[in-house]
């Protein structure tokens, strides 16, 4: 009996403790949720954690986005793909050889020092050693000098009509202007001083690599008077702080925006969209209409893809609809597009892409393979398993290639292993490869000047190493074209040549929807997620 009493007593204690714990949790929870969010702070979950802070050393999009927060640029491209003055206006000499940039008034670094022409010159030189477009300009540069504190004179040996477009490009590496002392860092070494002159100040004390980064409004920033348009126009900051937090789990991001803990989710996984669509507090939209292009790249160094006909057969076997349907699923967010420069861009042309955009041609591919005398050499197809946006393409492509008669050896690996292996020129059976897939933001491939896949300089070209003199001639012709019409003519030739030689296979375009709290308004459409102009309701 005593034991039963004790047990009863013990149960009573346990019940009390449990109720106490729940009440405590409720009380604490209530307190936490009752605490108002910090006024005028935008909390955003970006597509990736920020780990590299030097926007010149890397082409990582998150670092570029960071660059646009804290740095400014001389020239910026607007939504009509036109270069516009940002930090500087310019004049061009009649012979198109001398560009004179004049810095506007009021430009100041975050350490209060004025931005000078010497800072801009040093920054452009560092960028020119790193960026492929910049390298092309510096190949024809006679001199680049600061004439006085406000004037930069860029003298060329031969005209480079696309100079302003290249200096004003938004991706992958824009020429951000840094203080001269910072820009003198060799381009292969990361900078350690993050003083910029952009609309936000990087709060170094609160930075945790890969976890969170805080930007405070730069009170002394003088925005341009024009309305904001892509990366051009007035960068009016209307909040006190922007905080980027990293959330590795997609579902957690969704839960956080639904509960009001964050204001902005840069990328939403398509399969999780239904969770947001019923919310009255969140808007799902596409901010970047151009989106991404997914591509396949073959290795020109080794059989069988050293044979043009076999490359053509592989291209003919593939169907963009199959790839995009598997990768994205929802047709609202993908577009069949055979243009190597991306649909919706000035240079877009879809010549030569008919089989890709109309479901593939397996019979045609079989015929081409037979004509080429394909001997069944296995194709090493590298399949990354840890990047969500790259898991579908290899599987769909492998099946299509098998249907056409290819002997496919699909090798699963993590992205890092793929990145290392694709740099190897060894034979596929000895650690090399034959084909892999990746994605590019459309603004990174919308011109022959910047698209890495169109480089035809053999061993100096991008992975796959095509030696294509004709492509190099066409790229030179594009550089020399001095009107948009002439540029478009050359671009069409490049499109046709690419589809014939199969330097790479465009596999279609897709957009990534974002989610924002309805408290945020006036978000400008842009391929780069920018935080100026946005207003946040209390």
């Amino acid at each position, binding site marked *: 009996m005593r034991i039963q009493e004790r047990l009863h007593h013990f149960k009573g204690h346990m019940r009390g403790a449990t109720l106490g714990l729940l009440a405590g949790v409720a009380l604490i929870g209530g*307190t936490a949720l009752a605490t108002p969010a910090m006024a005028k702070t935008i909390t955003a979950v970006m597509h990736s954690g920020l780990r*590299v802070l030097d926007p010149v050393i890397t082409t990582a999009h998150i670092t570029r986005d960071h660059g646009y927060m804290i740095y400014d640029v001389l020239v910026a491209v607007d939504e009509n793909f036109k270069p516009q003055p940002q930090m500087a206006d310019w004049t061009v000499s009649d012979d198109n050889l001398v560009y004179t940039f004049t810095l506007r008034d009021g430009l100041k670094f975050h350490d209060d020092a004025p931005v000078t022409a010497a800072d801009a010159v040093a920054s452009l030189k560092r960028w020119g050693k790193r960026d*492929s477009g910049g390298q092309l300009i510096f190949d024809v540069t006679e001199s680049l000098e600061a004439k006085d504190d406000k004037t930069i004179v860029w003298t060329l040996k031969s005209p480079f009509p696309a100079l302003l477009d290249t200096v004003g490009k938004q991706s992958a590496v824009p020429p951000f202007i840094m203080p001269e002392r910072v820009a003198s860092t060799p381009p292969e070494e990361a900078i350690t001083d993050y003083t910029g002159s952009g609309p936000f100040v990087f709060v170094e004390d609160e930075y945790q*690599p890969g976890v969170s980064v805080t930007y405070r409004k730069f009170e002394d920033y003088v925005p341009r008077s024009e309305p904001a348009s892509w990366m051009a126009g007035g960068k009016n900051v209307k909040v006190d702080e922007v905080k980027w937090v990293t959330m590795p789990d997609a579902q957690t991001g969704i839960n956080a925006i639904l*509960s009001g803990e964050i204001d902005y989710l840069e990328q939403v996984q398509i399969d999780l969209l239904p969770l947001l669509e019923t919310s009255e507090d969140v808007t799902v939209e596409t901010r970047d209409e151009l989106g991404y292009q997914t591509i396949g790249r073959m290795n020109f160094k080794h059989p069988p893809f050293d044979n043009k006909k076999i490359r053509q057969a592989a291209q003919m076997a593939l169907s963009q609809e199959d790839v995009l349907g598997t990768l994205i699923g929802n047709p609202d967010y993908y577009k069949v597009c055979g243009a190597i420069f991306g649909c919706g861009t000035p240079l877009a042309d879809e010549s030569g892409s008919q089989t890709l955009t109309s479901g593939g041609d397996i019979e045609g591919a079989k015929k081409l393979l037979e004509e080429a005398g394909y001997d069944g050499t296995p194709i090493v197809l590298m399949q990354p398993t840890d990047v969500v946006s790259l898991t579908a393409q290899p599987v769909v492509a492998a099946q299509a290639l098998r249907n056409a008669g290819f002997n496919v050896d699909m090798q699963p690996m993590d992205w*890092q292993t793929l990145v290392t292996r694709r740099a190897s020129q060894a034979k596929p059976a000895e650690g090399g490869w034959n084909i892999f897939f990746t994605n590019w933001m459309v603004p990174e491939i919308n011109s022959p000047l910047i698209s890495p896949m169109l480089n035809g300089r053999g061993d100096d070209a991008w992975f796959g190493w095509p030696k294509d003199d004709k492509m190099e001639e066409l790229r030179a012709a594009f550089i020399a074209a001095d009107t948009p019409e002439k540029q478009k003519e050359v671009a069409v030739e490049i499109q046709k040549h690419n589809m014939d030689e199969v330097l790479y296979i465009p596999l279609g375009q897709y957009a990534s929807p974002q989610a924002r709290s309805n408290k945020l308004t006036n978000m400008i459409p842009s391929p780069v997620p920018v935080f100026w102009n946005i207003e946040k309701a209390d």
Partner: protein
Amino acid sequence: MLGYIIRRILAVIPVMLIVAIFVFLLLRLTPGDPAAIIAGDAATPAQLERIRTSLGLADPLHIQFLTWAKLLFQGDLGTSLISRTPVTQMIGQRIWPTFNIAILTIALSVLIAVPMGVLAAWRHRTWVDYLVMAFSVLGFSIPVFVIGYLFIQAFSIELRWLPVQGYAAPSEGFGKFLSRAILPCLTLATIYVALIARMTRASMLEVLGEDYIRTARAKGVKETVVLFRHALRNAAVPIMTIIGTGFALLIGGVVVTESVFNIPGIGRLTVDAILARDYPVIQGMILLTSGLYVFINLLIDLSYTFFDPRIRY
């Protein structure tokens, strides 16, 4: 006893040395290139090579090892190849969330599991016992992320009692810390409660059949005293072992829970470093984890002497 502690601490040195060499070589033999992570997709082979050289990755392996070992002897774990942040600073930022969550989880687990295990053993082969065992099996079987999502759905999204995600340090206010830590701790605790409750039950069952328990009861000692002072103390050695190794596992990083609840702990730091092939961070983390395991095992061994005075070192 002091001699034993000193011997155990000294034994750590060769263990750590072997771990250091093994980890260094293993990482270098794994495919991957931090320079490619830094430079991005559009980098040319020449640019990659220049970055490799500037990071010291182009040096022969033995030079790289000696450079790292020299820093290590000075107490410096090196600098992250990716973020260029000192590894000690990165670990310093990330260890506290993990440590605090681990402490709270273990405390919760012990508070819940030990009475559960005692109760199950005491009421052996009754519905109480079966209930405890059923909960145990459930705790083991449901994946931790499922439990996490269920808690979030219930307490954060439906009831709106607690935040969905994030971490707040105790210095920001204990209430704020607890409001963010309680769900991840409860999630993790389900496994440890199951584990510790089973172990407690098994040990208690063994002890409760001993003569001295019967004698104590015959002498009219209170049942709670019999259970918690006589029986539990004698059953404590295996329970302590489970609690200790459980704590070490928690400190080693619980990446799934950290991801689901967005806790910036060392589990995520390690996984991110591995995916980016950030060698100094991985090396630092493995050394730290190995050291912690050795230290916690030492504490467990020492705790045996408290619970069982017959054990002497």
